[in-house]
């Protein structure tokens, strides 16, 4: 959709807990709209942002819409590079098992289901940031 036809690397960094502020949800809204622009998209969850991917979320007690299911739909939007800061998980007593199992289907391999989440170290995050053209920080 870019006039120049060029694809840029977009990274959405999510650093805040899913509820308590609107940033997590309004970040997702940008990701979903942005998916239509066919750019090279990655998501990074760090700091309290790792809580956004926790499975079994129940928001009834706070009277807010539970948007957990939206994360599992990201694969259908070709958003399948989801990086999680493994130290941020460990610092909060969490492991990969506590997160939703996010997958995408690879059309180049007969729609084989593949994992979207990649645990990364902070050194790897530095490299990831270095590669990007556009970074949103939510």
């Amino acid at each position, binding site marked *: 959709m870019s006039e120049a036809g060029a694809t840029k690397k977009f990274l959405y960094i999510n650093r805040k807990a899913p509820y308590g502020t609107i940033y997590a949800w309004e970040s997702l809204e*940008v990701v979903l709209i942005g998916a239509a622009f066919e750019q090279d998209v990655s998501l990074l969850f760090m700091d309290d942002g790792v809580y956004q991917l926790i499975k079994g979320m129940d928001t009834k007690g706070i009277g807010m819409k539970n948007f957990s299911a939206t994360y599992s739909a990201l694969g259908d939007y070709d958003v399948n590079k989801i990086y999680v800061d493994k130290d941020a998980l460990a610092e909060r007593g969490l492991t990969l098992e506590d997160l939703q199992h996010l997958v995408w289907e690879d059309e180049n391999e007969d729609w084989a289901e593949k994992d979207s989440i990649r645990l990364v170290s902070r050194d790897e995050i530095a490299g990831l940031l270095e590669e990007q*053209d556009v970074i949103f920080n939510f």
Partner: protein
Amino acid sequence: MKFGIMVNEGPYTHQASDSAYFFTKAALDKGHEIFRVFFYHDGVQNGTDFTTPPQDDRNVVKRWSELAQEHDLDLVLCVAAAQRRGLVDEDEQKRHGKDGHNVAPGFRISGLGQLIEAGIQADRLVVFGD
């Protein structure tokens, strides 16, 4: 250089809009191009002309409007964020049957696609907020 600007916080509570304004003004003064200023989250509150700060304080909203007029800036309020936070232009007033409209001169309401486009078209997208 061609800049895109994103403002994520409301006026007065947070300095983000002030910093974005001074950055935008400085970039223009140096001969750079501002592709668009996009207001998101509480940042949309920078676009309400119902704002009436005390006379001895800066008028954050009016300052953006004047800069827009002077440099033909494109100031865009995200529609989804604006609807949640009571920012209403004449079209939205009619559509939702509201009593008035409050989008300040120089601002317009549009979609998040305008933000992504700014990311694609600008050489640098500079984000102001936490």
